[in-house]
């Protein structure tokens, strides 16, 4: 026969401060885990949603990032007219791209980080859904103009509309701010690819982005480009290209989250044990009475474990409340693939919260097990005489 749940709830409210302290300890543990994971998760989500399902990206064979890739103009001509490349009218949906980095100071600081300047082809915006100019206008081909992602303009000095930044001998004027639905290139500055090529005295591109007709064309084109010994290129789905960067950007944070959470959980479980041992000791007589009334050892054990789990669930609630304000808060760090800034949002998602719940309940369960076993082992006579 199980003890009614009401018994547990009543007991939890008797020692409010002790219950709260324990719940808060678990809450902080869960909260810290959630915060660090939401940071890692934000980076992952940014990268995993950046690639378009029907886009293929072409890089130099053996390159590890766009920054050390190279695609020649002859390569581009070969690529443009391959079978399977989607067209708009008679124009292939292909964008040759070039990137470089400029070092910019963060707002309110003397130091900063590298920001990617991407030279894009005319078709580029058609290959990237979600891109829209938020304020100002799109750059024109010809004059040295640039559009800057809103997030980068918010985080760095001198990148607002009307500001100029210099690459080699060219001063680019920012004419618009853009938004890209939280994708990785929302951490970039965009200019015309030919303009950037002449500015940086470079005759080749770093990558070519192309839209393919269908899923079949995707794999056959990728294979054809990668296998062509003449080209020395590799082609991969744009999605995979961004997903592959997840490890370098968020791996350290995830390892850190697990490490911190594990150690804090040990501390919280010990604290929970203290609370439960004290509760058991205080209620020794009560336990004896319950046993006399016919409740089994098992139901006593379950009752105490349940009590602790309820406190833990309360703690998880506190942890989620602590971490939730971070959701969608914008921040930035270095994406080590290109040694450049990646701006992203903290993301506290339902699956993270579920993980937090399992984690918190586990702390509550493990912390209460020993005290509850002790409670269930009391001899009736001894317990009543306490």
């Amino acid at each position, binding site marked *: 026969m199980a003890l009614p749940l009401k018994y547990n709830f009543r007991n939890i409210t008797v020692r409010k401060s002790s219950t709260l302290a324990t719940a808060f300890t678990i809450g902080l543990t869960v909260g810290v885990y959630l915060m660090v994971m939401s940071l890692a998760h934000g980076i992952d989500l940014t990268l995993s949603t950046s690639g378009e399902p029907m886009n293929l990206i072409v890089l130099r064979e053996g390159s590890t990032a766009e920054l050390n890739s190279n695609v020649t103009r002859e390569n581009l001509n070969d690529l443009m007219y391959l079978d399977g490349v989607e067209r708009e009218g008679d124009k292939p949906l292909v964008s040759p791209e070039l990137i470089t980095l400029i070092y910019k100071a963060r707002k309110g600081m003397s130091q900063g980080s*590298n920001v990617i300047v991407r030279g894009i082809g005319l078709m580029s915006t058609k290959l990237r859904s979600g891109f829209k100019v938020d304020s100002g206008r799109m750059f024109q081909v010809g004059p040295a103009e640039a559009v800057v992602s809103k997030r980068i303009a918010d985080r760095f000095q001198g990148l607002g509309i009307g500001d100029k930044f210099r690459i080699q001998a060219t001063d680019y004027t920012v004419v618009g701010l853009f938004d890209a639905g939280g994708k990785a290139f929302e951490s970039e500055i965009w200019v015309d690819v030919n303009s950037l090529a002449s500015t940086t005295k470079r005759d080749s591109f770093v990558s070519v982005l192309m839209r393919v007709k269908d899923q079949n064309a995707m794999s056959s084109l990728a294979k054809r480009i990668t296998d062509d010994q003449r080209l020395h290129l590799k082609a991969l789905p744009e999605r995979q290209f961004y997903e592959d960067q997840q490890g370098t950007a968020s791996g350290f944070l995830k390892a850190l989250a697990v490490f911190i959470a594990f150690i804090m959980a040990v501390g919280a479980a010990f604290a929970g044990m203290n609370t439960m041992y004290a509760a058991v000791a205080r209620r020794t007589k009560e336990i004896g009475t319950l046993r006399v009334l016919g409740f089994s050892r098992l139901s006593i054990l379950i009752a105490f474990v349940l009590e602790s789990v309820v406190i833990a669930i309360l703690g998880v609630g506190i942890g989620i409340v602590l971490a939730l304000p971070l959701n969608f808060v914008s921040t930035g760090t270095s994406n080590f693939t290109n*040694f450049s800034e990646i701006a992203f949002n903290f993301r506290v998602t339902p699956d993270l919260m579920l993980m937090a719940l399992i984690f918190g309940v586990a702390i509550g369960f493990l912390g209460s097990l020993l005290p509850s076993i002790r409670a269930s082992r009391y001899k009736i006579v001894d317990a009543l005489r306490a």
Partner: protein
Amino acid sequence: MKFSNFILKNILRNKRRTLLTVSSLVVSLFLIITLATIITEFSRGSEQSNPLRLITRHAVSLVFVLPVAHEQKIAAVPGVKGVMKFSWFGGIYKDEKNFFANFAVDADKLREVFTELKMPDTQWKDFISDREGAIVGQKLVKLYGFSIGQRITLRSPIYDRSIEFMIRGICTGGDEKTLYFHHDYINELVPAWAKDKAGTYSIIANSAEDVPRIAQAIDSMFLNTDAPTKTETEREFAMSFQSMMGGVEKFMYGIMGAIGFSLLLIMGNTMAMTVRERTKEVGTLKALGFQRGTIAGLFVGEALAVTTVGAVIGIGGAVLLFRSIDLGLYIPNFQSFTPTPQTLVGAFVVSIVVGLISVVYSAFRVSGMTIADALRSNE
């Protein structure tokens, strides 16, 4: 001191509780020290920089390289004692997971500019006279088992080349996870765009007064050329890398704050339970004529004793652990993993403050009860 026995007896009265509390303190302090060390290791580059050293890079960013002709001109700037090409090669040893820094340098100037590098004279001589020679830091030897005379190949995705080197020396001091080799040697092998170019120049000044003047002189000299420069002290240069971490560092402080707070809750809860359970005894002590301050002091002493034990084990354990296992070997970009004295002192202060705050309210409340109320307590 005359109460120390009394405090000790009380601490040992509920051994399990004391053990659990001390264990919580130990793991939390260990965690705080670990996180603080991650932050201090991030800034080690700037903390240990040589104040006489400057770095010249391209004004736009490190992606842009500088012509080797800059070297002569920089050398002629008054106050410059030595200047050396210093180019990030980004070479990968066998697998991308084996990340370590490797730089192309002017071998004959390395010793003068990087004064912290220590190596036997014969090895310096061997390295300088062998164009294909390379020297490796002591920690790379530990990680990959490199030995003098070994041939190794580094593949650089930046230059799209695989280049073979012969290890000629093992150096200590500075970042011991770095490999250096001859700029002249790779200059012939790299693609056209990188020929006769240097990523950065490392400069050593004659004196501290020369440093700001040198930076200004170099940058104004190249201002209107194809390759304008930005010259910073080594410290500023290192800080520009730390700053790339962006929001993460501030975030880590937040996490440490949260751990400190949970420490306070754990300790506070323990002390509240302890004090409450002894309400009756407080009544007895009062009846015996003990003053309120003395009684409160006994509880405070007890809390401080518990936190001190926790601090000593937690801090001592962290020091011993990080001394026996150098985590810096395994974390990319970290030269070492050693808690700083400030971190250790900070952790101790945190534990003492936690000990004090945790007990103040309970001790004050219970010691202020009347004898009758305290004795009547049914705890």
